[in-house]
């Protein structure tokens, strides 16, 4: 049985780069959880963070890493979701 394919990605958590070895068959949401744990960002659960590409476009976390076709070393950006703002 062949080993699952892996590649290194850089998850930038609130501006801080975190190097993660990603399994191409794992869902991005699992990658997000690992990046948050590795960077000690435990103030909010993973579902309260949004993942974006270098251009700032939101990425659906319920897809596999391999589906994005990212070259090794690609940076993805994690930020807390915006709270409710504005006033009546």
């Amino acid at each position, binding site marked *: 049985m062949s080993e699952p394919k892996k590649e290194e990605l850089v998850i*930038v*958590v*609130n*501006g*801080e*780069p975190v190097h993660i070895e990603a399994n191409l068959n794992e869902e991005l949401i699992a990658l997000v959880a690992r990046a948050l744990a590795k960077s000690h*960002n435990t*103030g*909010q659960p993973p579902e*309260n963070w949004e993942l*974006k590409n*270098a*251009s*700032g*476009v939101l990425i659906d976390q319920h897809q596999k890493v391999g589906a994005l076709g990212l070259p090794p070393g690609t*940076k993805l*950006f994690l*930020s*807390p979701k*915006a*709270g*409710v*703002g*504005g*006033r009546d």
Partner: protein
Amino acid sequence: MIELLVDPDVSRLKFEREVSRFAENAREYRQRGWILLKAEFPDVEVAFAAPHLWPHALLFAARVNFSNYDLWAPSVRFIDPFDGHTLTLAEARKKRISLPQNQGSNLVLGPNGPIQMQVATDLVQADDENDLAFICLPGIREYHEHPAHSGDPWLTHRKEGIGSLHNILDKLHGHGVLSARAFGFNLTVTISDIQRMGPG
């Protein structure tokens, strides 16, 4: 003059950490249209351009202040990118600075089927149009200091990561740049000189 509640060396260290992280991602931020104007404690000034629009446009600029950070959340004010003065709400509106609360489309399916335009709250606010404009979002000092949000203090959010330079700039980008879809032009044609042609 801001009252110093935190040792400036502590705030400066955290400021430098935020600026250092910006520098590490400078290439990607530049691709997004984030142009660093100034990074001198306690202020970071960034201009936001729209690379997805043609011709490219400078949409707005903001000053993020890290005084008493992070006992206080960072303060965010809109500034004129050319002379640096802070903008009132009236000035911000004149410059068409707007941060719709909903990122993305404002078209929704109505209860009876037809597609409707949903009017999004503008996060750029002030109590009076002659007051300095502020951004009504958690993680920003002016939000937490406003009486309308006395039940949502900054210190309950301090460890959530929402008061970082990256997150603040990311929210300004999401609400204020990506929501700008296109230019609207009015075209007026003026014909100033018509030469009459004589009979054949």
